[in-house]
């Protein structure tokens, strides 16, 4: 196992940031930590990169204990914090050179590993890092995190604040890095990125809701999901909540995602109900589940347990 956690918990005063987190990440796996802001993703990253002590539980990264062998971990992992954390007053090349030097290597030595990524920003190598665009900053940060050939790469929300094209490029880069045998733990609040990971852990309020392959999570979604649309979206949501058989309903882009508590649910019944409520332009059609649906379903279930 490249990363393994057992019952990791962490509180900040009275606030429980993480409780009983356990999972394993295999060598060379691209593992995603999916959850909204404040779910505890950053705290978990900081515990695994030895920046914070857990309150309880134990964890190993690349075979090293996060508390006892913190020095080994620090030399063998690459870490890219959520906030852009390079030297803004240093140029692209100087930043990269600095990180190569403090890890006791050179750019030339590991150039093949970062070539793919660095090529994108090499034309701007004399530009100050603070003057780069969001996407270029992340590419530089990734290059710096990779320059010492880490065994495990920790990327905390690498695509937040990045344009869609650069986001896509970043994920392609991660896929290629994975092929070079690097274990990658990546977090994101974007549910659509989850399907790009080998396995994901859905996390909310410091607890893990589910861990599995994204496709399995989608396939095992318990009920049918319907895309419902009407001219007045706001009124539609209110009325759907009033429908007696409604199990869940929440907005999803231009549609509302609807699931029924009744196993024999017929879309025509719902349409009739909505027509009675004076809706116009009604559409009801079945749609495949997404990670977001699974997340909403699971977080609803966990809230029920909490209450």
């Amino acid at each position, binding site marked *: 196992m490249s990363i393994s956690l057992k019952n990791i918990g962490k509180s900040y005063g009275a606030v429980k940031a993480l409780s009983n987190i356990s999972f394993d990440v295999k060598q060379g796996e691209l593992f995603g930590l999916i959850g909204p802001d404040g779910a505890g993703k950053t705290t978990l990253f900081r515990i695994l*990169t030895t920046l914070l002590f857990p309150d309880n539980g134990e964890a190993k990264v690349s075979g090293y204990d996060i508390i006892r062998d913190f020095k080994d971990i620090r030399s063998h992992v690459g870490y890219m914090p959520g906030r852009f954390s390079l*030297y803004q*007053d240093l140029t692209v090349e100087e930043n990269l050179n600095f990180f190569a030097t403090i890890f006791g290597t050179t750019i030339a030595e590991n150039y093949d590993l970062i070539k793919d990524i660095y090529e994108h920003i090499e034309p701007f190598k004399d530009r100050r890092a603070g003057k780069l665009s969001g996407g270029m900053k992340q590419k530089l940060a990734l290059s710096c995190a990779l320059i010492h050939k880490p065994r495990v790469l920790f990327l905390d929300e690498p695509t937040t604040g990045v344009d869609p094209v650069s986001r896509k490029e970043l994920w392609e880069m991660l896929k290629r890095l994975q092929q070079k045998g690097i274990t990658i733990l990546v977090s994101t609040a974007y549910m659509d990125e989850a399907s790009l990971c080998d396995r994901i852990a859905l996390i909310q309020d410091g607890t893990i809701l589910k861990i599995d392959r994204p496709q399995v999570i989608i396939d095992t979604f318990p009920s049918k999901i319907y895309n419902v649309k009407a001219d007045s979206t706001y009124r539609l949501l209110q009325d759907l909540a009033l429908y007696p058989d409604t199990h869940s309903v929440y907005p999803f882009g231009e549609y509302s995602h609807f699931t029924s508590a009744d196993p024999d649910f017929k879309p025509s019944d719902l349409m009739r109900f909505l027509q009675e409520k004076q809706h116009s332009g009604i559409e009801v059609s079945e749609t495949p589940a997404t990670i977001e649906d699974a997340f909403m379903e699971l977080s609803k279930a966990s809230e029920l347990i909490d209450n």
Partner: protein
Amino acid sequence: MKRFRGFVIKEFYHIFRDKRTLVILFGMPIVQILLFGYAVTNEINNVDLAILDKSKDAETQKIIHDIAASKYFKISDILEDEGQIEAIFKKGKVKAVLVFAPNFDKDLITNGSAGVQIVTDATEPNVANSVSNYLSSILQKYQTDINKAITIPYQIVPETKMYYNPELKSVFMFVPGIMTVILMLVSAIMTSISITREKEMGTMEILLVSPLKPHQVILGKVFPYVFLAIINAIVILALGFFVFKMPVQGSYFLLALESILFIFSALSLGILISTISETQQTAMMTSLMGLMLPTILLSGFIFPISSMPVALQVISNIIPAKWFIILIKGILLKGVGIVVLWKETVVLLFMILLFIGVSIKKYKIRLE
């Protein structure tokens, strides 16, 4: 070693890219030295003096002539009666009035004594004091001159001799003092914000998740600033030497060595502050408040330590500036060597080790 060098190079980039700070760093010492050297002085020159001469005879004319001939006074007004004295002080320009009693020469010759009064504007006590002293000594000299022919029995004439600063130039006191204050401030402020900046910018998070060791980070931060502070010291000493004719009686080598020692102590103090502060602002305020006032007030730069209350005398011992002022005055003015100054040197050395040691210990290797 390579890692350390890479870190130091990075620090130099930060320093040289921040042009505004550089200008302040090197501009401040020059401006301060020139200001203190020229403007802030206890000596008096061309003080405006008014004369109220009720006698108007040959003797008073001679005395007035003597006063006017000195570079210390400028006779700017002649008054007619006492009522005008306060009026002229209130205008503010004239700092002193010399009043001769009526029949000055007659009294002097017939009675052997004559009335003269010095009236000063004591809103500035130092000036009033100096003016009164200077005027008295001019009158004294005149008296000695007229008594030349006569031998006075039983006379005590003290012969004062001022060692090390015979002209009592205040700039000799200000150059070492300002050098101490500036080196302390510049070094401490510069380094105190350097580690907190990494914390604020989030780069500390990456530095921690790297094989860099605490001592590499701390020494790597101190190292580049030593060069800047040495340049500062050289600029200050050169200004003192060439512009104010400050002597260097002792060895240049020892001077350089002790200055570097003091610079290290100030830098390590700055580092210590930055390891315990979370933001650049706290670090800067701490170094300004916590270091500037004691360095100016308790180091013996302006106020002699021997006349302080015992409690403050004890506190003054923990201020590096106190020891450096003793060292630098000793070297510059008295020309003494390490044989005399070893104690102060050891104290500074001990302080450096202490500050660096505590900084390394206090340096957080985690985020909490």
